[in-house]
């Protein structure tokens, strides 16, 4: 149901909601960037709609709300262990359409891919999602190519225009809270085109796995993992068992983000690692995003937010890599014919 209300009224509603929810949204962290006097847009708690950065794409995605960068799973001592407490409050997350599609990818991995991940589920079950519209495409976005420019899977859509707030609610709590607001038809802003257009090859033949094509990336990639860390669909983690330094009989197990580009990702017992070459790491990531995942789950993993292209310090373009790969696949097909 659509409503027109005011920022004052909406902030009051969020103030009430904050008793039961932590409210997360992309906000500006001044001077927080890699270089001096560069800001970062990333997720943090807000108490007022004015804190939300609507005008720019966030550098990091919402995923850290549901999959913290570092999360203690349980504590152990001698013969006992205790699971870490879940947050006392639920969460409300403001995010864009592409990221809502990213949420589906996270759900697929953590809820529908074999055993349910209880640590993910206990956060996910108590999280509400509020869609932020996109009036214009941002640099490097290719959501239209990935079909993620629109999403209906939100608890509410919210648009701030000066003192006016337009809401499309699918959440009974909000419907009740907005009973006195003016009903209005509200349709989420979404883009229909992006400057970046990506064409994904239908299938990538096995013969291209060792193609010289990947070697150039081996020379360019510095294995920093930024492309993975900003990606809303990268869900890999690793474990860290910690023994407290002043009492080695007690400790905790943490799970932390992992990156298939960073050294150590493929390390095995005995010191063997099977993707030492950075070009092979690029091949693994790219084909996971637009080939392997689809074979298994039916949709592409990549949601076209373009954050990997925004962040790469070596100016490696994932989008351009897919397009070049597409040309390569087509050329290979022609040769066979």
């Amino acid at each position, binding site marked *: 149901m659509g409503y027109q209300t005011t920022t004052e009224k909406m902030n009051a509603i969020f103030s009430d909601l904050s008793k039961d929810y932590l409210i997360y949204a992309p906000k500006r*962290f001044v*001077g*927080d*960037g*890699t*270089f*001096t*006097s560069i800001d*970062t847009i*990333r997720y943090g708690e807000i108490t007022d709609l004015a804190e939300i950065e609507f005008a720019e794409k966030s550098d*990091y995605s919402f995923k850290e709300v549901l999959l*913290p*960068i*570092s999360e203690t799973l349980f504590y152990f001592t001698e013969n006992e262990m205790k699971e870490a407490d879940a947050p006392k409050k639920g969460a409300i997350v403001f995010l864009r359409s592409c990221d809502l599609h990213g949420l589906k990818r996270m759900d697929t991995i953590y809820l529908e891919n074999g055993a349910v991940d209880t640590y993910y589920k206990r956060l996910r079950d108590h999280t509400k999602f509020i869609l932020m519209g996109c009036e214009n495409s941002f640099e490097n976005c290719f959501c239209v190519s990935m079909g993620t420019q629109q999403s209906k899977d939100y608890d509410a859509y919210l648009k701030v225009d000066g003192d006016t707030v337009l809401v499309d609610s699918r959440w009974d709590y909000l419907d009740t809270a907005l009973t006195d607001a003016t009903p209005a038809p509200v349709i989420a802003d979404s883009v229909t085109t992006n400057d970046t257009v990506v064409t994904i090859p239908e299938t990538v033949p096995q013969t291209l796995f060792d193609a010289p094509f990947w070697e150039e990336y081996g020379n360019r990639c510095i294995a*920093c*993992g*930024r492309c993975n*860390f900003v990606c809303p669909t990268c869900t890999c983690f*690793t474990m*860290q068992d*910690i*023994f*407290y*330094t002043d009492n080695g009989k007690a400790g905790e197990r*943490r799970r*932390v*983000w*992992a*990156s298939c580009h*960073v050294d150590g990702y493929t390390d095995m017992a005995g010191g063997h690692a099977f993707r030492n070459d950075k070009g092979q790491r690029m091949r693994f990531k790219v084909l996971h995003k637009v080939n392997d995942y689809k074979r298994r789950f039916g949709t592409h993993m990549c949601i076209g937010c373009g954050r990997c292209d925004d962040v790469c310090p070596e100016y490696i373009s994932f989008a351009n890599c897919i397009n070049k790969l597409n040309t390569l696949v087509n050329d290979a097909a022609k040769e066979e014919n």
Partner: protein
Amino acid sequence: MLDLNTKKIKKNAYRVTKVRGETASRVRVPGGLLTAELLPLIQNIAETYGNGRIHLTTRQGFEIPGIKYTDMDAVNALLQPIIDKLEINQEIPGKGYTSAGTRNVSACIGSNTCPFATYNTTNFAKKMEKEIFPNDLHFKVAFTGCANDCIKTRMHDFGIIGMTEPQYEKERCMGCQACVKACKKKSVDALSVENYRIVRNTEKCVGCGECVINCPTRAWTRSPETYYRLVIMGRTGKRNPRLAEDFLVWATEDAIIKIVKNTYAYVTNYIDKEAPGGKEHIGYIIDRTGFEEYKKWAMEGVELDPRTIVKGPVYWSGIHYD
């Protein structure tokens, strides 16, 4: 016939050259940054009154050679819009640069452009220039954005090296160790790992920000405040060339400006009154009075941030030819 007061000419930023009848004009550019629109004005002086050539000075100014001494007034008129645009303090409008002893305040390219710089070196250099120019005393001040010291502040009387105090949010760290590797290979190896998290050796850390630059998750960020390492009394020259030594570490902008200004009073008091051309490098004066006497003058009324480390006594080395 030419009848010149060479002492006045030199103070007016003109050089007495080896060519009889010809001088050279030095154009100062504080912080080493200017808008391109000024280049045609400098070109015009060189082509109208000089020999059509321009020398780029080591202190980031321009030197226009081949000017006739008789054309100095005309050149001063053409210098005026450059002086105005670069906001140079000027005692007598229309008369060019009214001092030359305190040299152009130079700066590396800084955080306007460079990924390593911890602050806007140009802005600080301009601020310093406003505080200390014009003055006939021989002072060389340079600003550099980080511990790489590309402007070579350690060959100046005062070198200001930018520092950031890295802030670590451990919950944003997954232990990729990009910071540890960068610090070990590109800086001073001040980071170690304990239980998959990073420990910073605060005594070793030089505040270069490599950890911040290399962190992929914003676990490392910069401190809101910029700090500086103030290095003093480096010099080139015939007798005892040497690198500047640390005086203050984790110092603030205000403290540095105050110390440099205090040094003018110290030099005025202790300079060798018989020094040739009234010019004596500050470092040699400190060699004569002792560091503690200099420190007493320099620190007069200086308010220090609690983080600031004051070094002392300071000893210099370098090569002795005397």
